Every structure is written in structure tokens, then in C-alpha cells.
């Protein structure tokens, strides 16, 4: 070795010359053996966890030296050999251990130690690792080599391998069963080991998933038996979160989706039908928001929202169907439907994410069930509105009324026979308007407004006409009262108010004859003259059955005012002259038709307010009865209403309305057929039917349409085509 040095204190600079060594330096003869044995000792010391006799720097140098002297391959081979024997001893010892928990914890310990030792050894042989090993692609780095040896050893003994994976799976299972003592650290580190060794997917994962499937399959079946559906869902939710967390904590992320799929399948999908069958109606009936929300989320997870939708629709069909077809509870039907709808809406908002696809199916379900029964629901909806708009409807201000109307409107929307609704609504509206029973004209008008936006002005045209008639009548009456000419003719003590109704706007009323008292008849004539003088060319018909009178009546115990119908008045007026009359007398004098007269007499003698006394005192009115004026009648109020009979709808009236609607429908169908055929001239049966369905706004059976078509063929509006009987031709 030579060194050069420059600079000095004295004299001129000396020149130094470097000469080659005389003798070529040589390695000591046993250099390789010695160095290796030093390293070997160190390795063994590391493996046996003893103190290493040399400093790590020395050892590093030694390894480096050997490599520099081209002994790298030798070193590597020996190193592998050392490691192998170490791993064999260590794991060999472990295989004796039969008890799986101890085996696992020891294995974990060994594994940790092994890794640490490997790291130390790698530090010593870092130079080797970085140079020789790196340059040889076939060789594994020292650390990987160490792992591989470990793996080889495990793989070489199937028993160990089995104990290992089944031990791990068992640990997981125990944890699932709620065993708190399971050492998660061991579990986690062993799983990590398997991952590092590349043993995870082929040895552990399959077994783990199989076990998971077995476990949850059993649990699903057991729990379904054990728990009620709602608790079961809570349980499922808990399980899913647990598994999710566990998976994140100690499993490989690749296992996540197959694992969750298994859990979802076993716990939810397999039992979904049962869950929905048992739980859905229950939840909906009691509107358990949280449970429904959970159900929805779980089903969403497993992609079975369609089933939820189906259940919801079935629920609606079932419940609404029950309400609609329950003939005994007609009065409750509309309210029930409104409540049902409100519940469904709430569930939809709060539990079902207000899902778009649910809306459509719900609408269908409602329409289906409400129209299960023809006509009656339409009629009841009309009646329901009537009960809300009629005066005396208790509770609720304008706002509440408005809300109720909006709710009913939703039900109204589902009804397919809107014409039936219109007929009944019109009839009730007429009564409210004419008998002054409407609670508020504003509310009436706002209701009509709602129908208008819903069904168009064609639908409300006539209804609006009714209001117009009422308004116009008011003007007419003011004019009538202020007319001097009229005033001069009028007797005092009698007042008349006339509503002039336009035929067509109002329901049709069958004319009922009655012999009016002369006072009334005169008055009517005066009005008729007055009216016709203003509007010539019109025809006035008096609708006796709609008349309403206030009659002053002097009883022994004081005077009363009776609010009665015109027919009741006519009967009462007879008692101005007589105190006692037989049925026949009354019939002859009044000229009222028998059925109507019986009803009238019944209301006067058998109702709450009995101003006539009937002999004999039976509950029916018979031809042989006599009626006496009740002189000693008393009542706490001054003004008494006896015209309830007019307000109530009779069976007959109801039937008439329905029949009229059907009659109207036939005309409408005929008109539609002729209209279509007139524009098309020739059309096949199928096309005609489908065209008809698109035009008609009420339900009709195909067979009914067929009857109308045949009737038109018979009346020679149409004919069948000569060539093809399926085609109709229009006959001009």
C-alpha cells in the first residue's frame, strides 16, 4: 500500500515515487473458510437468539469481502442451507403441537421471530442481496428466500397446513358466535402471513368462504325461526356491519365482495320472500318507519327492490281492495282510503327514497283496487265531499277543509268512472245550493276549481252553470221585489224566493204534481208573468219537489216557525181549516202522488218533530190512518226543521242517478263509434275498439262496446264489410 503526502516544513519538496509491490499480495489460504465460519456462527447465533460475537460491521465487511472475492454464489448457497435447516427445525417442532389454538399462537410467534431474524440476516448480507442476487434474476432476494422456505415447509406437511387454515377459520367462527377471547392480533398477523407467503387464496380463502356460507346459511334458517321478522332484519343489519368491519380489519380486500355476497345471499336473498310475506304488511299497517327503512336498504343492497315494489303494490291492492269491497263499511271507505294513501306517501318519502319507479306502480295498484267495484267508489267520494261541504260539518277551519279536499282529490284521480262521480256530485251540490245547506260558497267554488284543473273545463262546465244560475236568480229576485208593478199585486205576509234553473246544468227531477194552496199559486203566476216579461220565449216549469217553506204555526203552547218542504206545507195548510183528516182526505186535497205523500206524512207524524198525530199509532203510514193536528205540541226551539226528508237521499233517487249515468254512457259510446267511423269510413273491429278505449273516459267492458256496435249495425249506421266480417264500413 502506498500513500502520498504533500507539504512539509523544511526544504524543497521531496519527490516520492510509488513502486509496484514486489510480491503480489495474496489472500490467506483459508480465507474463505474462516470468513464463512465466522458468518455461519453469526447466522446461527441470530437464529438461536443469542448474542452475536462479532460486530455487525465486521460481519457486513466479511460478507462484502467474500462477495468481492467472487465467492457470492458460495455464500448464497450456504446461506440458503442455513436458513432451511433453521426453518425445518422450528416448524418441525411446531407440527408436534396438536392443539390448534396453541399451535396458532406459537406459529404466529415463530413467524414474527422468523421475519425479524430474516431482517437481521439481510442486513448482514445486504451487499450480497444488492449485487449478486439482484444481478441473477433466478435467485430470490434473501428475505423472499426466507419466506419461501417457510412456505415450502408449511406446504410440505398437509397436516400443518390443514391445522393452520381450519384453525384460522375456526377462530373467525368463534368470533362470530360471540367469543370475546379470540386473539385478533394472532388472527390478523397469521392472515397477513398467509398473504405474504401467497398461501391466502388457495389455502385459506376457499375454506373460509365455504365455512362462512355454511355458518350463515344455518344462521339464516335458525334465526328466521327464532326471531320475528323485524328483529331478524335488525340482526342482518348487525351481521353485515360486523362482517364489513372484520373484513377490513384482518382480511384481504379481495375477499370483501365475495364475503359480503355470501352473507347477503344467506341472510337476505334466500329468505326475502318470507321476510316480505311476513313482515311487510305488518310494517305498513303500523307504519314502522325505521323497520321499513331497514328493509328497503337491505333489499337495495341485494338488488331486490322490485320485490319491495311488488309487496308494496300488493299491500295497497289488498288493503284498498278490502276497503272498497267491504259493503258494510261504505261510509268509512273514503276516509280509509285517504288514510291509506297518506301512510303510503309517508313510507315512500321516509323509507323508500321516494323512488320514481314506485310511484307508477302505486298508481296502478290504487287504480286497480278502487275500480274493483264499479261506480260505488265514485259515488262515495262524491258523498264524502258532500259531507265536508255541507253546513254543520263539525270542526276544521278553511285550511283544514282545503287539505281534506286535496286528499280526496287524490282518490278521485284514481277513479275511472268520473261520470258517475259527476252525477252524484251534481245531485248533492244541487241540494246544497237549493236548500241553503252549503257551508261556504268559497269552499264550493274552490272545489270546482280543483276539478277544473284536474279534468278540464268540460267536466265542470255544468257545475259552474249551477252557480251562475244561483247568482242570476238573486238578481232576478231583487228586480222582482223592487218592481212596483209586482208589488201592487202581492198580498202581504207571504214571501217568495225563486231559483231559476237552467235545464241541462242541473240534475233532472221528475215532476211531481201537487195542488198548491191558492196563495202560493197566485204568487207563482205573478212571478211567472214577471219573468217571462223579461225573458220572452222561455218555459218555466215549477219543481215542486225542491220547494222549501217556512211556515208559522200557532200551537197552544206558543207559536213556532217550521222549516218544511213544499209538500209538507201543502199538507199542513189543510189544517188551517180542519183539525182532523183521513189519509184519503189529504190525498184528495193535495193531489200528491201516494209514495211521496206517505213519505211526507211520515215525516210530519213519525219523525222527531211530530206536529201531526197519527191514528192508529203504528210505525207505517196506511191508507186507513187519520191525522190530527197536534195542538199541544211543544219544543224548546222557536225554529224547527222538518225537511230532513228532503235532504236525505232515497234509495230510488240513488238508483235513478246510477241508471241515468249508464244511459248516458250508452249514448256516449254510440256517439263515439259514429264519430270515429264517420272520419275513418272503414275500420277493423280491433282498431275501432282500441280507438274507443282511447276516447271514452269511463270503464266499459269490450262486450258492452260490441253490443253498441251491433246496435248501430242494426240501425244501419254501420255495416260489415262483404269480404271481411272483421271490418266495419260507415254508412252515410
Amino acid at each position, binding site marked *: 500500500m502506498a500513500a502520498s503526502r504533500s507539504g512539509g516544513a523544511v526544504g524543497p519538496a521531496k519527490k516520492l515515487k510509488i513502486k509496484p509491490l514486489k510480491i503480489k499480495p495474496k489472500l490467506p489460504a483459508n480465507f474463505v473458510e474462516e470468513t464463512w465460519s465466522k458468518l455461519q456462527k453469526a447466522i446461527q447465533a441470530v437464529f438461536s437468539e443469542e448474542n452475536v460475537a462479532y460486530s455487525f460491521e465486521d460481519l457486513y465487511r466479511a460478507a462484502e469481502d467474500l462477495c468481492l472475492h467472487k465467492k457470492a454464489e458460495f455464500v448464497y448457497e450456504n446461506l440458503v442451507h442455513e436458513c432451511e435447516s433453521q426453518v425445518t427445525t422450528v416448524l418441525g417442532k411446531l407440527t408436534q403441537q396438536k392443539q390448534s389454538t396453541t399451535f396458532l399462537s406459537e406459529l404466529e410467534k415463530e413467524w414474527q421471530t422468523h421475519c425479524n431474524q430474516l431482517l437481521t440476516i439481510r442486513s448482514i448480507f445486504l451487499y450480497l442481496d444488492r449485487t449478486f442476487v439482484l444481478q441473477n434474476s433466478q435467485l430470490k432476494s434473501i428475505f423472499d428466500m426466507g419466506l419461501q422456505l417457510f412456505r415450502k415447509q408449511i406446504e410440505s406437511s398437509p397436516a400443518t397446513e390443514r391445522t393452520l387454515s381450519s384453525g384460522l377459520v375456526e377462530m373467525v367462527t368463534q368470533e362470530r358466535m360471540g367469543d370475546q377471547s379470540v386473539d385478533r392480533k394472532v388472527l390478523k398477523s397469521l392472515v397477513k402471513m398467509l398473504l405474504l407467503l401467497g398461501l391466502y387464496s388457495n389455502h385459506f380463502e376457499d375454506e373460509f368462504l365455504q365455512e362462512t356460507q355454511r355458518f350463515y346459511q344455518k344462521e339464516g334458517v335458525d334465526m328466521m325461526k327464532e326471531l320475528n321478522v323485524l328483529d331478524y332484519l335488525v340482526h342482518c343489519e348487525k351481521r353485515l356491519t360486523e362482517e364489513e368491519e372484520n373484513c377490513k380489519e384482518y382480511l384481504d380486500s379481495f375477499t370483501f365482495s365475495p364475503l359480503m355476497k355470501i352473507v347477503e345471499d344467506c341472510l337476505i336473498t334466500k329468505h326475502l320472500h318470507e321476510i316480505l310475506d311476513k313482515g311487510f304488511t305488518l310494517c305498513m299497517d303500523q307504519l314502522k318507519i325505521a323497520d321499513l327503512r331497514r328493509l328497503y336498504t337491505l333489499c337495495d343492497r341485494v338488488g331486490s327492490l322490485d320485490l319491495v315494489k311488488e309487496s308494496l303494490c300488493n299491500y295497497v291492492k289488498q288493503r284498498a281492495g278490502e276497503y272498497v269491497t267491504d259493503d258494510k263499511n261504505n261510509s268509512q271507505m273514503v276516509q280509509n282510503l285517504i288514510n291509506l294513501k297518506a301512510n303510503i306517501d309517508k313510507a315512500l318519502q321516509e323509507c323508500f327514497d321516494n323512488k320514481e319507479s314506485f310511484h307508477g306502480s302505486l298508481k296502478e295498484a290504487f287504480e286497480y283496487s278502487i275500480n274493483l267495484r264499479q261506480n260505488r267508489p265514485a259515488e262515495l267520494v262524491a258523498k264524502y265531499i258532500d259531507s265536508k261541504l255541507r253546513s254543520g260539518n263539525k270542526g276544521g277551519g278553511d285550511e283544514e277543509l282545503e287539505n281534506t279536499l286535496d286528499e280526496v282529490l287524490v282518490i278521485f284521480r284514481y277513479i275511472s268512472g268520473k261520470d258517475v262521480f259527476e252525477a252524484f256530485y251534481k245531485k248533492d251540490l244541487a241540494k246544497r245550493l237549493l236548500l241553503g245547506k252549503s257551508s261556504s260558497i268559497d269552499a264550493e267554488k274552490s272545489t270546482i276549481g280543483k276539478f277544473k284543473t284536474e279534468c278540464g273545463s268540460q267536466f265542470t262546465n255544468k257545475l259552474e252553470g249551477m252557480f251562475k244560475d244561483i247568482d242570476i236568480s238573486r238578481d232576478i229576485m231583487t228586480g222582482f221585489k223592487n218592481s212596483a208593478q209586482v208589488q201592487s199585486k202581492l198580498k202581504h205576509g207571504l214571501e217568495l224566493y225563486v231559483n231559476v234553473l237552467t235545464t241541462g246544468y242541473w240534475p233532472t227531477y221528475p215532476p211531481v204534481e201537487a195542488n198548491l194552496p191558492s196563495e202560493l199559486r197566485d204568487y207563482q203566476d205573478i212571478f211567472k208573468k214577471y219573468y217571462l216579461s223579461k225573458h220572452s220565449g222561455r218555459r218555466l216549469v215549477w219543481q215542486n219537489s225542491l220547494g222549501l217553506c217556512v211556515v208559522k204555526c200557532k200551537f197552544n203552547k206558543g207559536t213556532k216557525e217550521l222549516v218544511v218542504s213544499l209538500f209538507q206545507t201543502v199538507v199542513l195548510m189543510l189544517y188551517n181549516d180542519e183539525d182532523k183528516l183521513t189519509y184519503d182526505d189529504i190525498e184528495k186535497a193535495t193531489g200528491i202522488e201516494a209514495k211521496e205523500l206517505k213519505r211526507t206524512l211520515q215525516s210530519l207524524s213519525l219523525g222527531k218533530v211530530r206536529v201531526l198525530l197519527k191514528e192508529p199509532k203504528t210505525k207505517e203510514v196506511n191508507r186507513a190512518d187519520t191525522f190530527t193536528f197536534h195542538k199541544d205540541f211543544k219544543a224548546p226551539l222557536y225554529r224547527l226543521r222538518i225537511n230532513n226528508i228532503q235532504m236525505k237521499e232515497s234509495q230510488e233517487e240513488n238508483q235513478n242517478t246510477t241508471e241515468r249515468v249508464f244511459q248516458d254512457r250508452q249514448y256516449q259510446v254510440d256517439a263515439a263509434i259514429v264519430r270515429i267511423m264517420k272520419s275513418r269510413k272503414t275500420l277493423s*273491429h280491433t282498431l275501432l275498439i282500441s280507438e274507443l278505449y282511447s276516447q271514452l273516459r269511463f270503464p266499459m267492458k*269490450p262486450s258492452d262496446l*260490441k253490443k253498441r256496435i*251491433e246496435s248501430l*249495425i*242494426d240501425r244501419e249506421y254501420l255495416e*260489415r264489410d262483404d269480404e271481411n266480417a272483421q271490418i266495419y264500413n260507415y254508412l252515410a
Partner: protein
Amino acid sequence: MNRLNKGQREKVRHFQAITDCNESFAAQILRSNNWNLEAAIEYVFAEGVEISSIKPSVLEKIYKVYKDKDEDLIMAEGIGQFCEDLGVDPSDPITLVISRYMGADVMGEFTKEEFFRGFQRLNCDSVKALKKKLPALRKELKDSHKFKDTYEYAFSFSREKGQKSLVLDTAIGMWKLLFGIYSWPLCDQWCEFVEVNHKKAITKDTWFQLLPFAKQFPADLSGYDENGAWPYLIDEFVEWHEEKNMKE
């Protein structure tokens, strides 16, 4: 005849084949239509011209034999005699065919005009000649196309004067008669159905559509589509038939 050229003779033969009349009459009609075959045929069928050269005087004699004493008509009595002379039963469907040739408007009476028309159309100058034709007429009943004419004619023929539809009892009688020849296996069931469930007169449309229905569907009515244009009474019959079969 000799005055006609070859083309004209050909047309006369053709015309005869279609209209079933004698030569001179055919030539006469063709001449008046400028020897246009199609126009001539159309004319004959549209106008219902009597295609015959049978002299009215001959027919007058036959007519007198059967004429009613008081009215200028052949009434029930005359018809009975007429049938006897022809050797047929009055309820024999062949009478329908003869009536159809006469274009008789109502059952049970022939006007003079109708009676003449029948003999001329059939080209007969005596009852005997007509009797000879009977086998040919019977064949018409078996021919499905001509049967349709007879079937459809039967509706207006059996209808009461001024009525649009056919009284149910008459209709059932007619069906039994007609479908006796055509042999529709469901005829009895149909009649039973109509009698029990319908109880009303039969419209022309129903009457007319029943024959194609009977022709189109087998006895088990398979392949029937109630959404088709068949009259509703037939729809109901099919439904009734199915229910009945189910019960059995």
C-alpha cells in the same frame, strides 16, 4: 240466331252460362247493351230483369190454379196445393230455394209478380218442368256457396212484416231446418242457448254471422277469439259452451 256473328254467339253462350236463360233472351239483352258482356250481366243482376222468355200467358194459367179466392195472391192454401203438386213437404228446405228464386218477401204468400219471377228465373213453363228441376235445386242446398244465399235469404223471408229482427221461435225453427242440411254439430246447443239465455229476437247481423261462425270453428270451438268482431251473442254462446263442457 244466324244473324249473329261468331263473337256474338260466343258472348250469348257465355251470358247463358252465367244467367241461366234461353238464347233469344240472352241475345236480346246483349244487343240492348251493345254486346258488352259485362254491362249486360250487371244490368240483369242489378235490375233483377226476368231472364226468361216464358210467356206471361202460360204463367197466368198456372197462377190461376193456386190463386186465393179473394185476394190477388197465393196464400197458405195455394202454397199447400203447389207443394203437393211438386211432391214436396211444405217444411222441406227446398221450398226455401224456390221462394228465393221467386224473391218472395214474406213467408206464407206469393204475389203474382213473385210467382212469375220464380218460373221465369228457373225457366220453367209448367209445374212439371219445375218438378224436374228439383234435384238440381237440391244440389244448391249442398253447395256451400249457394247455401249461403239461401241461408241469408231465409232471414228476410221468415221475418214478420215491418220487423227488423227475427222472432226467436221462428229463428230457431229456421236454424234447425237449415242446419239440418248443412249439419252443424252445435246447432242444437246453439238453439238451446238462445232459447234459455237470450230470449229476444235475433238481429240480422247475428243471423248473418252465425253461418261463417259455424263454418269456421270445429265442434269444440277451439281457436275462437272473443276479441274478434263476432257478435256478442256468439261470444256468450262460446263462453256458455265452455262452462257447460267444464261442468261435464
